[in-house]
């Protein structure tokens, strides 16, 4: 009796001891006072080929508040966004990069980086934005070779190619997107573009889908020779050769994902607004909206609707487009983006296909249920990027 009690005591003592041994580490929580929220994209999407083999590979390292040695070479930085690769065409409404895949290449910042991210601000999930101390920062983008060696461990001679070295001021609790862009297609001048977003301050309804557009293409891109800019590549659509500096935007909504899908009345080539090429001014484009349930027959819970945007040069009529649907060489007069398509072999058409702007997901007792989003479509040198920002929604009930 006594023995078994002693045994018990010893057993528990051993457990308690090991608990003590493990329990010594102290968790340090990181905290940034007065943060600004920053998301960074590398929009340099050119290809290195025979003709431009002396150009730098568009693979970057971002250094915020770097420390330089006497030769002007960065040796450390407060914040480092390494392996910044060409951005993905679609930036989904949730942080989709961290923890997925073994590659170090990061299609955006923070992306794969394990840093403090933004909260839910006015109902918008900012978990794809990194927290950065607000205030004035020196920001440097460096070209780096494409390998898996962290930037500061690279050979010194590979740490010398500056893309830009500048300063930026970030205000507290503001949301920013920072773009590395080519500003001039002929001189190949690169630069950055910092946009102070305002979607979280606008009175946006959650029964409407919002979208705004930017044409951040380099000056002279659409005028350049189609072969020189590699715009005629299969799958890049008419957009590959660029669109003119002034375009009108039209939206068409389709009821469902069948090839003969009916267009929703009232949204068949509806004029939305004007798009001006602009890679310099830091203004937010106006948000255009259309109802989530434009299709009244959908029932108010789930809709199969998808969207198409046509960009037409001023003076052109959407009812009378003088190019066929597979023609890529439209002289910058017409290009289109489909957010979803019924065609499995869509690359033969001249439109660019993106994911649907509507988020359909299990929420509450409905599976799926449709939610409206806030979107940004950016056109950069023949490529199209869609970023979707999502609101909170109720968790699923099983």
């Amino acid at each position: 009796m006594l023995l078994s009690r002693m045994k018990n005591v010893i057993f528990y003592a051993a457990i308690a001891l090991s608990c003590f041994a493990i329990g010594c580490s102290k968790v340090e929580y990181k905290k940034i006072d007065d943060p600004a929220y920053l998301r960074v994209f590398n929009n340099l999407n050119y290809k290195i080929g025979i003709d431009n083999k002396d150009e730098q590979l568009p693979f970057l390292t971002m250094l915020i508040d770097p420390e330089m040695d006497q030769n002007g070479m960065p040796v450390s930085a407060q914040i480092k966004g390494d392996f910044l690769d060409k951005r993905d065409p679609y930036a989904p409404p949730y942080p989709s990069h961290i923890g997925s895949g073994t590659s170090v290449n990061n299609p955006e910042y923070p992306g794969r980086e394990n840093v403090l991210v933004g909260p839910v601000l006015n109902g918008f999930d900012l978990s794809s934005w990194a927290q950065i101390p607000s205030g004035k920062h020196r920001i440097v983008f460096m070209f780096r070779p494409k390998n898996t060696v962290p930037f500061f461990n690279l050979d010194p001679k590979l740490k010398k190619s500056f893309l830009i070295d500048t300063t930026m001021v970030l205000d507290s609790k503001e949301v920013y997107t920072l773009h590395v862009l080519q500003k001039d297609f002929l001189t190949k001048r690169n630069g950055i573009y910092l946009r102070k977003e305002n979607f979280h301050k606008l009175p946006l309804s959650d029964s409407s889908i919002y979208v705004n557009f930017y044409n951040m293409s380099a000056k002279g891109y659409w005028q350049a020779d189609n072969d020189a800019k590699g715009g005629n590549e299969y799958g890049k659509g008419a957009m590959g050769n660029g669109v003119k500096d002034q375009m009108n935007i039209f939206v068409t909504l389709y009821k469902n994902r069948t090839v003969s899908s009916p267009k929703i009345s009232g949204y068949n080539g509806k004029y939305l607004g004007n798009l001006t090429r602009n890679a310099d001014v830091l203004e937010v484009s106006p948000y255009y909206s259309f109802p989530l349930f434009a299709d009244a027959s959908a029932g108010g819970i789930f809709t199969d609707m998808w969207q198409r945007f046509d960009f037409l040069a001023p003076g052109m009529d959407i009812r009378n487009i003088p190019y066929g649907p597979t023609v890529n060489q439209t002289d910058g007069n017409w290009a289109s983006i489909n957010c979803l398509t019924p065609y499995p072999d869509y690359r033969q058409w001249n439109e660019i296909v993106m994911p649907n702007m509507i988020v359909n997901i299990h929420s509450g007792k409905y599976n799926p249920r449709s939610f409206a989003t806030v979107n940004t479509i950016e056109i950069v040198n023949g490529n199209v990027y869609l970023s979707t920002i999502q609101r909170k929604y109720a968790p699923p009930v099983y």
Partner: protein
Amino acid sequence: MKYESLKKCLYFLSVLWLLGLNACKHDDLHIDKANDNFRPGFDFVKNNYDLSLFASAIEKTGIGPELNGAGQFTILAPSNAAFNIIGINRPSDFDKMNPDTLKFLVQRHILNERIMLKDIPFNGIDVRYRTLAGTELYASIVSRDNSNTLYFNGSLASRKDVTLANGTLHVLDRVMKSTANTTVQGWLSARPEYSILVSGLKKFGFWDELATEGPYTILAPKNKEFEANGMTAEVIAGLNVNSYIGDRLFGCYVMRKKHFFVSDFVVFSIINNDSFYYHPVANDTYIMTITAGRFNYDNIYDQSIGYNIEVRTNKNFPYDIVTNVKGHDQKAIDNLTDNGLVQDLQGILILPEQAIKSN
């Protein structure tokens, strides 16, 4: 009895606890010991039958002891077959060379840093290093199916990352051809076998720019190629500049703002699937389509690469193919100078009658 086993238990527990404490300590028992089995640079080259010509070249220049010394080296050792390509078949052939030229040749195959395959950025094009001779070395690397193809100045590294006690060694299957302190202009004018090309370039006003910064890639047919097509020196001298499209007739041999090793076309065909390179003839509709790759498929060990140029009247259909010319001469391609490269061409691109002005 009871207490005995309890005591035992306590005793073991304390021993266990001590063991547990000890387990946290990680003595580094691994001791790095210098490996005596690796040879230093020059000894390795000397002891390798396939590198015997390079060894005797090093011996003649007297930098052997330096290569055996401390410090890190990268030796880009051309194999004996590589020396055979440029006409060196036995050690005594080096005696015919100017000793300074020979020293320069050896020194530009050696770097005083260790460059292994993993140090060169993945799919890097023209990653630049500095050789002992002070010249720039261009390394290009491309990976496909887990195998890396590495070129130094257009020469394939057929063996990579050979360990030396004081660095690393790569075996090249071609001697890197480079000339110090010269331009493409100087290179061409020093070689009488290209005199007809030179006279044509002079006559049509492309010559003077070849001494400027560039970079230029010159496609250079030898005199015998011109003569075979009836374009002798006298014929060139008698051409009326105003009745020919100069940009086409001789401008096609001058590629401005380009410096191509033949291997670049191979590298980009793997990285980008760009198997064809279209080079427009300046101020003309004519276009040159350049492709490159292996050409000797009879011998699987022959990894030599060469290039082909097809001249077309227009890029897009309808067009006529004007000529199709190859540049496969391993001893005459990839001649590196300070402002570009000269690539030997085994044929001529445009005949005078194909460049007559129509009005």
